[in-house]
């Protein structure tokens, strides 16, 4: 389906709202076209294309809410869906946590979240982009497995209190793992962009090829506490456990790493090294995101951790009302401020340490301390006197991102990366961390 314009969305939504007889009604309307190619064993394996749109109609009578989704937009179908949502609301039990929909909001000017060239990607363009990656693999006698996907979409919402919001977006994500033919070396690279012109599958595959070649013949080292340099793709999977867990309600209820004895929380306290600054900003040119959240709240630049101090929690509208504070939506973009050093300079400044390309299979061990376990993967190297000396076998860690950010040694330049666990994009610097806890060796390559 084509990307509907703001005027088209406004007209459709206005008409749909016109059918409402509920106390209040809110409608979210969006759609996307997406496509992907998956490849492995140096050849394409599966691929596909999905086109879908949906209109989500929420009707409320008092604290009783009914929600219906439809993908048919002729007048009769929309009216039927609105009626259904009202019937559903009448049947629903009262939800004591229901909060009335928002009134009109003021949003910041739209960021450049939509790039026409990305929206214009065809199956042939995808095939060519993957062809570039496969060429590097074959030239280097390596075996490639990778994934490229792109999407273009629009989102809009309107409610009976006069709120209207609209946005469009595009994304293209790429990841590749190259393995040596004998299975003793493996390298990984991943990138995500709004603008496809930045997606150089050839260059990014070269990085994976270098790591694959360099990781052959890995040596075992004793598990223990080591200085590590976490590349952005490795750091993000631990950091997202921290910035994704800043929920006020669980902290206030006493069941979060942010809770303290006696019903108190860590809000406003210094929790990590004072060089740590984590914020969200929808207008950041490297990671532009929507200026409004799914429930219509404005998304603004907001600090989460400033100079190591926890500055903000996220508050649902219900919990904010109960606690007498302003609601704060979950951010769409996370930016961790970096330093000025390149990855190469971080390596140069390391006397003894480990360079980590990727961390994998991250799972919570203790929610009280935010302790997570997982393993290194696809390119782990020993550094001595500022130089990469040799590849090492992979290691299992047990570490908390809170402890990790207290053991910060140095920060590099922030860059946009993709989490191999959640698929989310964020701006994350490479980090040099002291005393990172490895607990056992793995034979996996």
């Amino acid at each position, binding site marked *: 389906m084509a990307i509907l314009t703001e005027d088209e969305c406004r007209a459709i939504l206005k008409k749909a709202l016109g059918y409402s007889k509920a106390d209040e009604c809110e409608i979210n309307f969006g759609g996307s076209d997406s496509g992907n*190619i*998956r490849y*492995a*064993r*140096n050849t*394409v394996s*599966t*691929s*596909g*294309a999905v*086109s*879908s749109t949906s209109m989500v109609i929420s009707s409320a009578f008092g604290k009783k809410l009914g*929600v219906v*989704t439809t*993908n048919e937009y002729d007048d009769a179908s929309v009216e039927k869906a609105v009626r259904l949502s009202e019937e*559903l609301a009448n*049947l629903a*039990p009262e*939800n*004591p946590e229901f909060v009335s929909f928002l009134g009109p909001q003021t949003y910041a000017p739209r960021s450049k979240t939509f790039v026409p060239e990305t929206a214009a990607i065809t*199956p042939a363009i995808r*095939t060519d982009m*993957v*062809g570039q990656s496969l060429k590097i693999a074959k030239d280097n006698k390596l075996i490639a*497995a990778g*994934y490229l*996907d792109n999407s273009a979409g629009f989102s809009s919402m309107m409610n009976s209190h006069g709120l209207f919001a609209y946005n469009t977006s595009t994304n293209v994500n790429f990841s590749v793992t190259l393995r040596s033919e004998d299975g003793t070396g493996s390298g990984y690279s991943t990138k995500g962009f709004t603008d496809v012109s930045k997606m150089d599958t050839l260059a990014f595959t070269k990085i994976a090829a270098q790591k694959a070649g360099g990781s052959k013949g890995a040596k075992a080292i004793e598990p223990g506490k080591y200085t590590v340099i976490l590349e952005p793709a490795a750091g993000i999977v631990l950091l997202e456990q921290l910035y994704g867990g800043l929920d006020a309600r669980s902290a206030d*209820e*006493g*069941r979060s*790493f942010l*809770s*303290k*004895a006696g*019903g108190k929380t860590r809000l406003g306290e210094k929790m990590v090294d004072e060089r740590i600054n984590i914020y969200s900003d929808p207008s950041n040119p490297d990671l532009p995101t929507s200026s409004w959240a799914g429930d219509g709240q404005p998304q603004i630049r907001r600090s989460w951790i400033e100079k190591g101090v926890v500055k903000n929690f996220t508050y649902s509208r219900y919990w904010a009302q109960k606690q007498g504070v302003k609601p704060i939506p979950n951010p769409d973009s996370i930016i961790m401020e970096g330093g000025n050093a390149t990855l190469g300079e971080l390596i140069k400044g390391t006397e003894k340490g480990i360079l980590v390309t990727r961390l*994998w*299979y*991250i*799972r919570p*061990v*203790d*929610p009280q*301390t*935010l*302790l997570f*376990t*997982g*393993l290194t993967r696809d390119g782990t190297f020993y550094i001595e006197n500022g130089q990469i000396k040799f590849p090492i076998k992979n290691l*299992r860690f*047990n570490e*908390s991102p*809170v402890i990790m950010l207290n053991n910060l040694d140095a920060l590099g330049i922030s860059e946009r990366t993709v989490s191999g*666990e*959640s*698929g*989310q994009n964020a701006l994350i610097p490479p980090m040099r961390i002291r005393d990172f806890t490895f607990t*056992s060796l*793995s*034979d*996996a390559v």
Partner: protein
Amino acid sequence: MKRKDFLYLTGMGISASMLSRIPVFGSPVLPGHDMSPVDVALKKRMADVVLNAARAKGATYTDVRIGRYLNQFVVTRENKVENIVDTQSYGMGIRVIANGCWGFAATDKLDTDSIAKAAELAVAIAKENARIQTDPVQLVAQKGHGEVSWKTPIERNAFEVPIKEKTDLLLSVNDAAMKGGANYVNSILFLVNEQKYFASTDGSYIDQDIHRIWPLFAVTKIDSKTGKFETRQSLSAPRGMGYEYMTPRESDKIKSVTTLYKDRYDMVEDARAAATQADQKLKAKSVEPGKYDLVLDPSHLWLTIHESVGHPTELDRVLGYEANFAGTSFLTLDKWESKKFNFGSKNVNIVADKTQPGSLGAVGYDDEGVEAKKWDIIKDGILVNYQAIRDQAHIIGLTESQGCCYSQSWQDVQFQRMANISLQPGKIPMGVNDMIKNIEKGIYIIGDSSFSIDQQRYNFQFSGQLYYEIKNGKIVGMLNDVAYQSNTQEFWNSCAAVCDANDYRLGGSFFDGKGQPMQASAVSHGSSTALFKGVNVINTARKI
């Protein structure tokens, strides 16, 4: 669906914020709305349109799946019903081979023109991708089944049980926990009905009606003086059953240090026990790291089987198809070809079974029209087979597929997914007490919790819900901060005994994740309680 959603659910930490992350497909349906499957004759007509359209554009093979996927979530906390969500998703996925390459397209517009266009798009994508393909797809032969059907043998359709009966049950579960001293309790009932129709150019027209159910809770206890908190999650299992699973039956209870459940679950009783045990966990002794004999209950062991046996024996991983994401496997083809790779001790017999009644993986036919079957994976400790689908079968010399193909919805392409993989019970009569009485220094672990394993399935770390210290043949108290780490081959070779069939139970998950884009698959793993000698246990307590 975002991978993060899986992580939260597969971690099965169901705190309030986590419940809101449960992935929901499709559109809500009204309670009481007609949920009976779509007319088979209509589905056959649509399928034939697609098969003909794809053939006309040059497809040499086509399959079409018309799916109606129903979910219901009933979500409560303490004395509140938080949410009741009914969803349905209805659409068609078309998979073709053209110029020797796979192509796939999906649509939820089911008029004749739209489905014919989707078929043409699938063929166009296949032809485009064929430009960079090196090995043409080879499908092992599969005979057409004609028009057939299969249904999960349920006693009571959970979707037809009145909502009030479900909310009343969950609220009484919460009440039992709160009366037992819990600070918070979250509970959820998760129901799935897959109504799926498959047709292919092999001449199959297969109509299936699959049912699954999963009751879950998490009880939280907080020590306000210290700020410490502990949770104890339900010891239920997700099952390929109807609502009958929710009716307790004494003959399905195993009385151990806590009550354990076979084919019927007593959710209220388990919640009452959980409140007491969450409090005991707060006061439990922190484990001394070192080597222990581990007695692993099926409510825990299923996940270790899943990660360390189920995944490395998936042929797509062995061959490298998952190298960029879920990973490869240490069980390389040469190990299987040798016919003597010592995966585990003689006590280790593991079968793959797509026919097991009450299991999550049980179907009549897989998502490429192959009849469900059962086969050996590990026999007397030796690796003897993998799990394969039609386009992989030739690689391991099979003349037919093992029927492991699955897609989570009509809009995702089907691929190789794990069958039910289960450890067979011991042949010598033995209960858990018989096992414990001979142990000098051990830990009895019940329930699943944290789990992590490397991308080739060598090194793993697991935690549980309840840990009981065993000293000189007796349980002496509860432990905390326990995780065990091992290497798959070493671990299964340390398997010294497996209890008999009276102790056999199923565990499992709705959310086995694999593939790009990520797809979820539901799978069960059965076992009796098993003993593993001298496993490395670490202490996970830290301070922040």
